[in-house]
């Protein structure tokens, strides 16, 4: 029991940033926009979260800052792909390259500075329950937010009218437009939501996962989040499972290294990336399912005059 607890705790820590970034991208993609810039939005969120925390002393202010930083990046992406109708794949790549550059520059002053960790929310009474309380109910606010977001996104997408509109815009923007819905407005909101979530995911990395600023600290997690959305076939509950499975793989890898398994550490470190490829292959082998679930207008620009 007591040996399991720290492992479970680290799995939650490893899974939360993936879950946060992926749940945002899920909404973005459901509206028909493919934003490959998750990594870029995440890393800018990470650096801004750290910087504002370091300057203000309040990690909560840092969390808010990381969210707005992600949204600012997403706004840039939205302007290009939605207003100027640029290629979404190329623009997403540009967002990642710009984000990595910007974060490197902004974060230079903070390298090596000790960070302030986002505090654990202690729930009186509940957090002391053995196991359930000490593992599940002794987390920081971002973990709770990530789990609440999954439930909220599920409810929103499948039980509300606005969720139906998002899905309609993503599946057939021409019809949605003809019905009088503003395709661009819906997509802007979806892109901004994705940016906010990616920013939070970045903030989680620099405020909880390793409370410090390291250049390039997202280390491909934004791309793994993108893969998770495909893996979950755009469904929030499957996304929850996927993110935690992935978190588990990356944590067990650390424990295997620590336990002194005779494999090179680099091979173990490469495991999450290899696992991503394997997962993508497994999911894409079943083409019919993937095709049925992919938002039909994913990646296609919309211009109202057509």
């Amino acid at each position, binding site marked *: 029991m007591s040996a399991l607890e720290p492992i479970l705790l680290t799995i939650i820590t490893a899974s939360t940033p993936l879950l946060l970034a992926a749940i945002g991208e899920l909404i973005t993609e459901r509206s028909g926009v493919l934003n*490959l810039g998750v990594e870029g939005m995440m890393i800018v969120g990470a650096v801004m979260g750290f910087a504002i925390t370091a300057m203000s002393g309040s990690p909560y202010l840092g969390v808010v800052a990381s969210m707005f930083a992600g949204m600012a990046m997403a706004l*840039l992406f939205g302007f*290009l792909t939605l*207003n*100027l*109708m*640029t*290629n979404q*794949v*190329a*623009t997403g*790549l*540009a967002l990642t*390259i*710009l*984000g*990595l*550059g*910007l974060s*490197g*520059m902004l974060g*230079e002053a903070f390298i090596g500075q000790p960070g302030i960790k986002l505090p654990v929310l202690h729930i009186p009474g509940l957090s002391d329950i053995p196991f359930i309380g000490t593992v599940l109910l002794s987390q920081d606010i971002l973990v709770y937010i990530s789990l609440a977001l999954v439930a909220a996104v599920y409810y929103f997408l499948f039980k509300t009218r606005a969720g139906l509109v998002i899905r309609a815009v993503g599946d057939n923007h021409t019809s949605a*437009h*003809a019905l*009088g*819905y*503003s*395709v*661009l*407005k819906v997509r802007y909101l979806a892109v901004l939501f994705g940016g906010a979530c990616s920013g939070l995911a970045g903030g989680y990395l620099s405020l909880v996962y390793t409370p410090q600023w390291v250049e390039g600290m997202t*280390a*491909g997690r934004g*791309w793994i989040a*993108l*893969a998770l959305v*495909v893996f979950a076939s755009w469904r929030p509950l499957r996304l929850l499972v996927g993110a935690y499975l992935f978190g588990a793989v990356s944590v067990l890898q650390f424990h295997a290294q620590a336990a002194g398994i005779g494999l*090179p550490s*680099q*091979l173990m*470190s*490469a495991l999450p*990336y*290899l696992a*991503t*490829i394997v997962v*993508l*292959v497994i999911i*894409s*082998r079943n*083409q019919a399912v*993937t095709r049925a679930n992919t938002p039909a207008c994913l990646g296609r620009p919309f*211009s*109202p*005059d057509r």
Partner: protein
Amino acid sequence: MRLELEKRSEHSALMTVLSPVVALGLTVVAGGILFAAMGYNPGEALYAFFIEPLTNQWSIEELLVKAGPLILIAVGLSVCFLSNNWNIGAEGQFTIGALAGSMIPILFHEYTGPMAMPLMVLMGALGGMVWASVPAFLKTRFGTNEILTSLMLVYVAQFLLDYLVRGPWRDPDGFNFPESRIFDDAHTLMTLGDGRLHLGFVFALVAVFVIWFMLSQTLKGFEIKVMGETPRAGRFAGFSHRGIVWFGFMVSGAFAGIAGMAEVSGSIGQLTPVISPGYGFTAIIVAFLGRLNPIGIVFAGLLLALSYIGGESAQVALGLSDKITRVFQGMLLFFVLACDTLILYRIRLIKSAPKAGGAHERA
């Protein structure tokens, strides 16, 4: 009053040429604003970044050394991108090309015959192709998204390099530094003149010519463009979708691999844990800025190489962070993509929005 985009009836030829220039202009302006915001004299900083590196022979040579891999990788990527295949893992193919190309100098260093160099180039190309074959195979066989698989392999390649340099390929006489042995003269690319410029730049120029010839003069070039723009029409013409995926990945993988091998053999002279300042990713910018056109890519490659040298020069002259280089590169790509809209659309200024526009206006 608002701006509206109006679709042109055909591509604007003028804008096709002009848009990268406009994008560059906007990048310089935005860069000046950025420098000013950071408290530097924008004129001075821009001079140090863009002009000063062109004022002495040493840095012009260094410019060509850095432009070599960028152009070579980008021209390969352009084939891939033109056929609508998204190989964004050139950085990984570059790394594996460097590893494969280093096998002779590290594992068989006694072999210094005249065939050593050609074999190393071949090995580099093969290494890049092997790494690129994974996303190509997964895409053609299972329909797996090549963007994610090719990118994931970048990380795997870097871990492999790290493992080899710290483990089996470490120089036994290297005082435990994570470096391979220093390459023998026979395994070092010939330099042009007596500076740092090596044969890698010539490889790039040859690749540019070959791809230019293929795209503009051969059926294969036509096939690539048709499959990229209208795959349905291409299938009616009997072109193979799988074939074109493989072709794009193999060409871009081979070129990236050769670039990696040339970087290690020509510029560094040994394997180290980090062998590239992100050439594989910057080459994506080069390909787009060069309009996926081989000749355009030469100019774009020189410009992006300048951004690397400019970053170093501004660091020396003004104490600016060299991180600014990547910001410039990112901004440049953004402006290029934004300006490309002008090729397909013209911007109209509309005085006042009519209220009773119905569904159209709500968009």
